[in-house]
């Protein structure tokens, strides 16, 4: 075993992934159950000459990483429910001003302060629509530490490729449980670095004029090009505008650059779907319980399958539709009131085949919980 193998918490696996991806600026504020991320980075970042700062609140942390990103640094913050709510305005700013950054939200019971130490998946829709106004967003998640490492790297890659904030949506169970992580070799997972403008000093640089492929080459603050960055609707120079044509063009660009690349951003894992009569759809820690049930029932000859979503937004509609094509029943396993269930219902052929297996009491959903729902759905009684 030549590779470095660690036994650690999910929050720590996220940190390892972020450092592998090139994180060098973190701003945060303590909140359960995400705090280990800040604690660990306060130790690790100075060692590599990176910057760690504990800000006065969640809002300031989000703002600080946007500022740092504009100087050319890969930046991240981490929080949980109430803190994620506070960050929303600045997340919208990062969407509008097209500033790459990664925001980790470790979900806990809500609403409000809810159950700080208990698990939930109630923030799925908040990652989608938490900030005001029409926009598109990328949200990723994972169910084990090896995947979490890789998806964290992917979060940075997508944020750089599409110049957008990427939400990394974890939950308390994944964040705190410990399991093995094998650190990939350098280069094993490709990294996307910032796309710099090739425009030379003295030539007019248009910070908000997309190339033909939709990407926006950047010039960092402190570099040779001076330009304006704003959260207002802006023209290709980044200067505020109320021209309807400019507003329309900007809105289309912000949405299309993400919704137009769903395929490239879709990360799902398929288990036993080929002949499944019952398809479970799940994500994050819930997917562990779903897969446990699927493997158990398969051993008894029942044809269960699982589609695990790692990309939640933009919603991987095509992958979901395809997986559910021949299913008699679709059971969405999640720890909320059906936030992804409703999305699944929108895209499947027959929405009446879609059921929710959930827990909303702060208890981690178990394979037995899912099986009980399945039995009811199949008319086998409780």
């Amino acid at each position, binding site marked *: 075993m030549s590779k470095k193998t660690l036994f650690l918490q999910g929050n720590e696996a996220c940190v390892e992934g972020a450092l592998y991806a090139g994180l060098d600026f973190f701003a945060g504020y303590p909140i359960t159950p995400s705090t280990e991320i800040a604690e660990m980075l306060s130790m690790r970042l100075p060692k590599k000459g990176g910057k760690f700062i504990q800000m006065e609140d969640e809002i300031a942390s989000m*703002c600080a990483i*946007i500022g740092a990103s504009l100087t050319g640094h890969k930046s991240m913050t981490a929080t949980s429910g109430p803190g994620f709510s506070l960050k929303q305005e600045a997340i919208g700013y990062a969407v509008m001003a097209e500033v790459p950054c990664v925001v980790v939200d470790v979900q806990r019971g809500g609403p409000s302060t809810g159950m700080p130490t208990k698990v939930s998946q109630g923030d799925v829709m908040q990652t989608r629509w938490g900030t005001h106004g029409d926009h598109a967003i990328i949200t990723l998640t994972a169910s084990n530490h090896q995947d979490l490492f890789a998806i964290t790297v992917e979060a940075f890659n997508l944020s750089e490729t599409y110049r957008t904030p990427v939400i990394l949506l974890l939950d308390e169970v994944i964040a705190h449980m410990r399991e093995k992580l094998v650190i990939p070799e350098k280069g094993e997972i490709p990294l996307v670095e910032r796309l710099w403008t090739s425009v030379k000093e003295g030539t007019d640089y248009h910070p908000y004029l997309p190339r033909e492929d939709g990407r926006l080459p950047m010039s960092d*603050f402190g570099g040779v090009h001076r330009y304006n*960055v704003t959260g207002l609707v802006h023209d290709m120079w980044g*200067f505020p505008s109320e021209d309807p044509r400019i507003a329309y063009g900007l809105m289309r660009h912000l949405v299309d650059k993400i919704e137009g690349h769903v395929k490239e951003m879709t990360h799902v894992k398929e288990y036993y779907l080929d002949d499944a009569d019952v398809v479970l759809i799940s994500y994050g820690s819930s997917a562990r319980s779903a897969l446990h049930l699927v493997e158990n029932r398969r051993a008894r000859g029942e044809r269960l399958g699982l589609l695990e979503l790692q990309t939640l937004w933009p919603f991987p509609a095509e992958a979901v539709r395809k997986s559910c094509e021949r299913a008699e029943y679709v059971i969405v396993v999640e720890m909320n009131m059906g936030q992804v269930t409703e999305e699944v219902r929108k895209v499947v052929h027959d929405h009446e085949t879609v059921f929710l297996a959930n827990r909303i009491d702060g208890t981690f959903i178990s394979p037995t919980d899912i099986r009980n729902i399945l039995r009811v759905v199949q008319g086998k009684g409780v």
Partner: protein
Amino acid sequence: MSVREYLRERFMPHLWCPGCGHGIIMNNLIRAIESLGIKKNDIVMVTGIGCSSRISGYLDFHTLHTLHGRALAFATGVKLARPELKIIVPMGDGDAIAIGGNHFIHAARRNIDITAIIMNNRVYGMTGGQFSPLSGYGTLATTAPYGNIYEAFDTVELARGAGASFVARTTTYHVRSMKEIIEKAIMHKGFSVVEILSQCPTYFGRKNKRGDAVEMLKYLKESTAPIGSERKRKNPALIERGIFVEEDRPEYCAEYEKIVEKAQKG
């Protein structure tokens, strides 16, 4: 260089009203930077939301026009990431002290090398004349039709108490000392605060019957006095202006560098 070379003329005319004090501040800010000889590429100007905050769009630096109250939080990210850059953060009074009050006191406590310029016109201008934390008791505003029952913050005392290592106050009438104070604030290593009393004839002036811009400038002249001056001794009600705090104290980014050294040794 001429003043024009610091302006983005493409984005003129500016949106400030005739008689507004903000143009005077922009003028002196440019002159201060010019006389210090700082390269435009080495300056990042960060602003929040409000009339004052539009200043960033008009000036040819790296400019970051952010969210209401949050300019110092964004600026902290920029500064810590690139400590060699000069960071200037012009803010309105509501922007800096109400919605941004928490960021203001913590930036001061951190003593991070950022220059905060508070353009204090005692009113929320962009939204049409509501009272601000610096309007003062008894003033009228669109949200205080019966008179404002809040006392105003003393920005100087607030900044001093929070730990800013450079604190000064001037007015739009005193343009020469304004330029000098801004120069000193920019060159100061640490968190520097310059409160500039400014006039808003459109809202504060009209609502409170303070006359036109000239009347308001006269008032700024007559109601203020240099720190420790004869006039101030004779009339304690006068507002003092000048440099209140100028201390050499550990600066955040420099302290952070020590952390890096410690971490890399261990």
